[in-house]
């Protein structure tokens, strides 16, 4: 009974994750310029990764606490902790990389297509000395 509920939760989160990762690909093809493509490519893949990695973490936790068939307890703990590490790395690095790419695109002269307002336009790209890119959350 409990195992069935777990299976359903895992299947639902797997399908949500796959759907959003697929949407990221479609968004990359459909949107008109770099900035909107970054919206699709960053938000959707991060959200999809949360659900896909979350389902694997759930499988690991189930094997850890109930010693599920096919996986020993050691396997379960390793699976859960290492997947959580990979998810943490994705969550930390994805938005920072997107910010760096958006800044680079704007400074190399790509204009947002169809923009109603551009406050940053015409500002000289200052040479910055201190980099605020390290995400020390």
């Amino acid at each position, binding site marked *: 009974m409990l195992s069935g509920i777990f299976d359903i939760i895992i299947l639902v989160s797997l399908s949500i994750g*796959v759907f959003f990762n697929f949407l990221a690909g479609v968004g990359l093809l459909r949107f008109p310029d770099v900035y909107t493509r*970054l919206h699709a490519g960053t938000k959707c893949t991060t959200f999809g990764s949360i659900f896909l990695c979350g389902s694997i973490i759930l499988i690991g936790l189930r094997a850890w606490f109930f010693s599920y068939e096919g996986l020993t307890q050691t396997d379960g703990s390793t699976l859960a902790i290492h997947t959580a590490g990979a998810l943490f790395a994705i969550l930390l690095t994805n938005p920072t990389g997107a910010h760096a790419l958006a800044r680079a695109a704007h400074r190399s002269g790509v204009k947002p297509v169809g923009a109603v307002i551009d406050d940053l336009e015409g500002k000289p790209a200052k040479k910055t000395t201190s980099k605020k890119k390290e995400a020390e959350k």
Partner: protein
Amino acid sequence: MIESTTFLVVLSALFLSVAMAIIRVIKGPTAPDRIVGLDTINTIVIVGMVIFGYSTNSVIYIDVAIVYALLSFISTLFIAKYLEGGEF
């Protein structure tokens, strides 16, 4: 019990979105467009490695995924810096 074919379906759907990102990398009119496609491919490949590692019972793939995530982040930052035209 979740069948292993479920994970095969998940992996092939991920491969489909990687293929769409590759089209963007080939077509992309400007260089930043291509790098956005590359960044998306990196994230999807990390998740794909995690799922592949579970479905083939080899946890070592997940360690590789962690290292790949950090390295791809550094490469994205370097390419962004290069596009900006600043000194390193």
